[in-house]
């Protein structure tokens, strides 16, 4: 058994991030808690999926890990070293190891640079030891790895479709040979047939380059497909973390269960059978979240005491995490079981 420090590439401890927002010219500033009490680790070589609905803090979390946003409190331990304490200049060098792929592939590419220049750019800043010829050789090799033809090297981003542009974004992220890539909704803007190509590509590249991936998405089917473990966020807090199979076969948190039954299933017979455990209402405002458990306003299992205490993030059997004071007591509703067990 290896020690935690070796198996964990990243450890997040008590991370908190707030944003202050002004509501009007003379009004006082309001505080929005985007992330709170975030504790988890990412193991070397795994794909950790982060799911949640809009405003749950999933993208903010990805950016906090990469230090693109500075958290208010807490630590981001990269191989034991706290990245939040690393000076900006040194962090810049560290970025060769930590890269990101964005949702909108065309918007994240500089329209005035050629494909070759875009992919080469991180090498210029992060790997100054390579000369021009070495850089070009690496760019061409990477283009091949992501399925771009060598003759595309002098073309501009607007000449590419969304799927091709995402391949360029992936090549740019991989060129510095990073250890970790945060994929922030990498396939959400793509057509279904292209989405599948990019998902397969990411999984091939992960094996080829020995990558660790953090895969952020609102689409639970996609996350389930790519992830070893899945982290579920609700209003800036972790509600559950477990392996994909555990989340799917034996969800502990009522929110995870509700998410699972709301996912559209591309199978008409199953879709007709299932009785959607539709959540009431919508996500409350993060400016003024409910007291106690933030999910209680939409939870069918909520009781008085759920309003009184913030549920702690408990570690339960198998190293799973769950934040619900009633997880032991609540039963999976029969109709949900019919679908989940199918």
């Amino acid at each position, binding site marked *: 058994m290896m020690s935690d420090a070796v198996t964990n590439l990243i450890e997040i401890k008590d991370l908190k991030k707030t944003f202050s927002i002004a509501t009007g010219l003379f009004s006082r500033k309001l505080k929005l808690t985007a992330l709170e009490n975030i504790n988890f680790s990412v193991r070397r070589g795994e794909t950790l999926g982060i799911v949640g609905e809009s405003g749950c803090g999933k993208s903010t979390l990805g950016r906090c890990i990469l230090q693109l946003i500075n958290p208010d409190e807490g630590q981001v331990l990269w191989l034991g070293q706290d990245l939040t304490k690393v000076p900006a200049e040194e962090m810049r060098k560290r970025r060769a190891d930590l890269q990101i792929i964005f949702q909108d592939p065309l918007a994240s590419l500089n329209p005035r640079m050629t494909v070759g220049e875009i992919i080469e750019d991180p090498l210029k800043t992060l790997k100054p030891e390579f000369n021009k010829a070495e850089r070009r050789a690496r760019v061409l090799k990477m283009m091949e790895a992501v399925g771009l033809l060598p003759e595309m090297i002098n073309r501009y981003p607007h000449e590419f*479709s969304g799927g091709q542009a995402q391949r360029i974004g992936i090549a740019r992220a991989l060129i510095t040979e990073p250890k970790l890539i945060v994929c922030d909704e990498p396939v959400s803007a793509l057509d*279904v047939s292209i989405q599948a190509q990019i998902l397969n590509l990411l999984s091939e590249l992960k094996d080829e380059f020995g990558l660790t991936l953090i895969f952020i998405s609102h689409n639970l*089917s996609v996350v389930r*497909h790519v992830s070893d473990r899945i982290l579920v966020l609700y209003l800036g807090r972790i509600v559950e973390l477990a392996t994909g199979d555990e989340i799917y076969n034996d969800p502990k948190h009522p929110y995870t269960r509700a998410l699972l039954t*709301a996912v*559209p299933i591309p*199978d008409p017979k199953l*879709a007709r059978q299932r009785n959607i455990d539709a959540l009431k209402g*919508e996500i409350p405002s993060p400016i003024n979240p409910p007291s106690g458990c933030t999910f209680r306003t939409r939870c069918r299992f909520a009781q008085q005491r759920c309003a009184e205490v913030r549920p702690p993030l408990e570690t339960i059997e198998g190293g799973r995490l769950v934040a619900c004071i009633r997880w032991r007591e609540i039963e999976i509703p029969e109709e949900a079981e019919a679908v989940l067990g199918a």
Partner: protein
Amino acid sequence: MTKVLDVQDLSVTFALHESEVRAVNNLNFSLEAGETLAVVGESGSGKSQAFLSIMGLLAKNGSTSGKAMLGDVNLVGMEKSKLDRIRGKDIAMIFQDPMTSLNPSLKVKTQLAEVLVKHRGFDQRQAEKTAVEMLERVGIPEPAKRANAYPHEMSGGMRQRVMIAMALLCQPKILIADEPTTALDVTVQAQMLDLFKTLTDDFGTSLVIITHDLGVVAGVADRMMVMYGGRAVETGNVDELFYDPRHPYTLGLLHSTPHIAKRAERLDPIQGLPPSLEHLPKGCSFNPRCAFCFDRCLEERPPLAPVEPGSTRQKACFYEGPLKYGKVA
């Protein structure tokens, strides 16, 4: 069953600087009373343009030919003044982004009431009262209070409910929903799909749902039409197409869609890229990406025809063997 909409040879052409491009090509389909038809395809398949043309909402450089019979009136080529009496009353359309479809400077109830005053001759008070009732029907809590809100004061899910309420005010025969849940969160999407089912049952409205998401199709639709490169390539009942697809593109879409209940090691995506409408390949438009393509597909365009004589299912494909990956030589 009665046909509420019968579309014949519908084509949509856009004039570009020195050329023109066909976005929709000889589309034929009909919609039965009370049914839900899903129109499925990826970007550029023509699925949205086909219905925008039926509604008379094409961009200025677009032109439509063919027929779209709503009962015994043809919507194609109809004068705007006549069309205005039909749109919103007999046939309504809602879009992906409800914010851009609502007027940001008018209260929700004002926008809703306007429809009733214009199409059904209600007076203002009566119209506002009916508007509030409809907001309640679509599941908006405290409808009387929310009716006084402006669109920006509502969430995306609430705005989409307002759009649905507005579309249903005149109890149209047909509601066309273009990617109505794509911008919504998954739990809100589930509520919305549930609402569509209830409302089509209650009002007997025929629903056309335009989407790229096969999960949405499986949950709400009775029949589906798959489009590729501006043409229908397969039509039939939802169960038939999901469990026994006959067009390689339908098969490819099904294999590209991750399924929460069946975790596959890999997806089987369709190879290559969707075609550019300006440079469609000769023969079948799908041939460069098709695993089952043979000589004839490169030369001739397969017509949309019954899969077997007398069948109501249709496909546009010459290949007659079993559609299974890995079994083609």
